[in-house]
């Protein structure tokens, strides 16, 4: 078991292997289908500073944030999976979700020394490990806005790293 705390270093990511069990602690970002393309557009326009958090070394959790809690949505949905390469290029170190990714995405993660981790959809347990939450950007998207949450030891398994996938 490896304990990761945000911001995650390049060295920590380089040491991770597919199948490793990890815990994730600290402040992490949450976003999914609706908001991730908007975040990428802001980065492309050189407006990443307006997001309200430094994305270098960050985790992006593919989830909505609502009164029902948090839990991973499928990372291989079109708008989510297509965000993984550009967000990795911008400094995101760990993408947290569920489901198998395509080969091109796994290769892109390797290019930018980022990884993908799978988290069980255990909303009731994750609720006990989530201590703060706030909207960072695009509040009009409601539960799909870009959120920042503080987490304590979220459990996950490394699903893709260094060009390999646990789904092979």
């Amino acid at each position, binding site marked *: 078991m490896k304990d990761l705390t945000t911001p995650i270093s390049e060295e920590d990511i380089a040491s991770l292997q597919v*199948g490793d*069990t990890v815990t994730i602690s600290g402040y992490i970002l949450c976003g999914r289908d*609706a908001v991730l393309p908007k975040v990428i557009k802001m980065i492309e326009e050189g407006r990443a500073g307006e997001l309200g958090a430094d994305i270098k070394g960050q985790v992006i959790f593919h*989830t*909505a944030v*609502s*009164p*029902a*809690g*948090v*839990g*991973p*949505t*499928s*990372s*291989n*949905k079109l708008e989510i999976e297509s965000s993984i390469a550009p967000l990795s290029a911008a400094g995101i170190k760990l993408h947290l*979700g*569920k*489901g*198998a990714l395509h080969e091109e995405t796994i290769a892109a993660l390797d290019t930018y020394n980022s990884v993908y981790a*799978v988290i*069980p*959809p*255990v*909303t*009731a*347990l994750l*609720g*006990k490990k989530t201590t703060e939450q706030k909207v960072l950007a695009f509040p*009009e*998207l*409601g*539960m*799909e806005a870009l959120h920042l949450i503080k987490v304590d030891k979220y*459990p996950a*398994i490394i*699903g893709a790293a260094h060009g390999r996938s*646990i*789904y092979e």
Partner: protein
Amino acid sequence: MSKSYDEIVSLVCDTLVDAGSTFREDKKEAYKKAIEKETNDKARWVLEQILENAEAAEENKSPLCDDSGIPHLLLEVGEDTPVTGKTLDAIREGIVRGLRKLPGRPMGIMGGDSERIDQSGGLDPDSAGVAPAPILLRRCEENVLRLHILMFGGGPAIRAKTYRVFHKHNTQVVLDEIVSWATQGVKELGCSPCTLAVGIGRSHFEATAMMLQAQADGRYDVQSEMEEEITRRVNEADIGPLGLHGNTSVIATFLKVGPQRASGVRIVCVRPTCCFEPRIATVELS
């Protein structure tokens, strides 16, 4: 003796909360058996996490999953149990209150037809903005009015398939197709282990209605030969919990075969329900 409007509202409200937060006892036992049999360490860890999550959700009466689901209702009507417009209003109000109490995820989309398709109408901030699907109604032998509430998540909806199968007058051909669709669906789901809900009918509507009834009628401790075969064959694909490999891709199969027509075609609906589904609770309203 019939229940009052307010009594029905209250019962439906609490039943929806149970559906969204509770594993039935036969499902808990099925998970315990799967944990005992699973030989892959990571798969076993995931199964244990899912069961622990179910215990926490039941204790808190909180959602099993953040995708708290779309209410789907099956109403069973006995011989002398009247169903009026007011009964349906009370059920609808109970659903509204239940979604707020759970609380359900506020994921209803506002606006006209086009806005609801492209999501440009914005999200309703009220959990109760998630309208239930049309009610399915059937006759029951007991002289009661019984409501099943099922909460359908989005992941299984993406991977479900309803299509025709040319059966070649051989049941095995249809089973082979079900196994093929289910294996692909479970691979893509990401939230396995599944309970496979399967309906076979004469039209897309009927097959889907059978799929829903299969979830209301199915039991983890009572499996037919066809159900066992489907489960066993999909499990041979080594997909495992969350797709991380292992023996437990499917916990059970719930299959309902409806009336069929003289034809070379059967309409089959396969829904690979996620690790928490069927999220179901049942209440008598008479």
